[in-house]
Structures are given as C-alpha cells and as structure tokens.
C-alpha cells in the first residue's frame, strides 16, 4: 500500500481524499440532474429558476469538495471494495479459539510480509515497494468486511495476493479476528 502524503500536522480535513472525491462526484451528479430538470422545465415553459439555482448550489458544493480533496484532505488511498463489502459482518465468534486459529494462519502465510506484530516489518517486507502497511494502525480504520475483501482478493499494485483459493471463508474471517486483536493490543 502507499504511505500517506504529507505530515499529520498539515491535516485539516478529517476525511481522506477518496471520501471527498466520492462526495464531490455525487454532488456533481446531482448538479447535472438539476440542470436537466431546469432545462426540461424551461422547455415546457414551467418555472425553472429554482432547479437551476439548486444545480448551481450542488455544482458549487461539488467544486468545494474537489478543492478540499486535493488541498487539505490527506491522501490515504483506500483500495476499492464492493459497496456491500463494508456491511459484511464476521460470522466467526469473537472467541480465543477463533483468534488462535487466525493467528496460526497468519503465522503460516502473512507473517513473512506483515511481521509478527503486524507492523509491516516481516522478513520479506524490505524487498517490497510499496511496503506492507502497519496493520495495527490501519485495521481499526476499516470495516471488517473490507479486510475480508482485501484478504480474499488481494490488493492490486502491491505484493498482497488474494487468498480466496487457498483459505476457506472461515479461515479468512478468523484472520480478520486475529488482525483486529493485533490492533487492539497495540
């Protein structure tokens, strides 16, 4: 994964570039809908000023979102997951046994890159560009369904492979339990 740009002191907007861009795009879509509505009403000789003004407001807000996204918002790329993945919940119980199973899988497959503590300092990490991120910091920032998706499908542009064909669904969810416990014991 790519490290965030800039220093933390420079951060003003408590939102990532990806989030602000997504909001900006949706506002832009809304502005276009209002523009179409205003045109339709104008064509039909009906009142069109309010939809036109609404479109202008949404366009202006969209511009603000884009300006914030590329000026003050920090750039922490979030590799895309399907929208529904964020809402997936871990079906494995949060028990010491599940965490231990996850730990065994982690030590077998993940430790070589992510390191014993999840700090991204495994023996193979130093050969990688981009380097593995510190899981202890990043795991709490994402939904468990996102972690499950990245473990299953891998992360494009990085050395992170997808484990869907190697690990069962239960094993991948147990891994999520384990990396969450790593983050909790930081």
């Amino acid at each position, binding site marked *: 994964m790519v490290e965030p740009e800039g220093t933390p002191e420079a951060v003003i907007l408590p939102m990532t570039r990806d989030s602000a861009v997504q909001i900006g795009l949706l506002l832009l879509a809304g502005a276009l809908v209002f523009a179409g509505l205003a045109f339709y009403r104008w064509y039909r000789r009906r009142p069109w000023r309010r939809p036109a003004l609404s479109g202008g407001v949404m366009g202006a*807000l969209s511009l603000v979102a884009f300006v914030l996204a590329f000026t003050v918002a920090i750039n922490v790329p979030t590799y895309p997951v399907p929208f529904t993945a964020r809402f997936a919940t871990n079906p494995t119980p949060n028990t010491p046994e599940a965490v231990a199973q996850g730990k065994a899988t982690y030590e077998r497959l993940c430790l070589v890159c992510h390191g014993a503590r999840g700090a991204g300092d495994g023996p193979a990490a130093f050969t990688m560009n981009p380097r593995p991120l510190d899981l202890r910091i990043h795991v709490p*920032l994402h*939904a468990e369904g996102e972690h499950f998706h990245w473990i299953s499908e891998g992360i494009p542009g990085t050395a992170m492979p997808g484990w869907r064909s190697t690990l069962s669904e239960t094993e991948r969810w147990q891994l999520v339990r384990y990396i969450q416990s790593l983050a909790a014991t930081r």
Partner: protein
Amino acid sequence: MDGVTFAHIASGPLDALIELGLPLAVFAGLYWWSSRKGRPKP
C-alpha cells in the same frame, strides 16, 4: 508513525453512509425546495 492515527471521518458502514448520505441529503433538500410552489400572487 506510532501514535499517529490517520483518521477517516468514520469507518465501515458509517463511512459509506456519510459518503452517500451527505450528497443525497443535499439533493433531497434542494429538490424539495425547488419543487415547492411559490406563494400565490395576490
């Protein structure tokens, strides 16, 4: 990087709801306003 949290405004479902919900709320509000009938002229 220890001790520094690069926070999203939220994470997980709440993050998604904000990203989608904020523009939708603005759109809904403006749509309601633009569909409102003006005061009848005396």
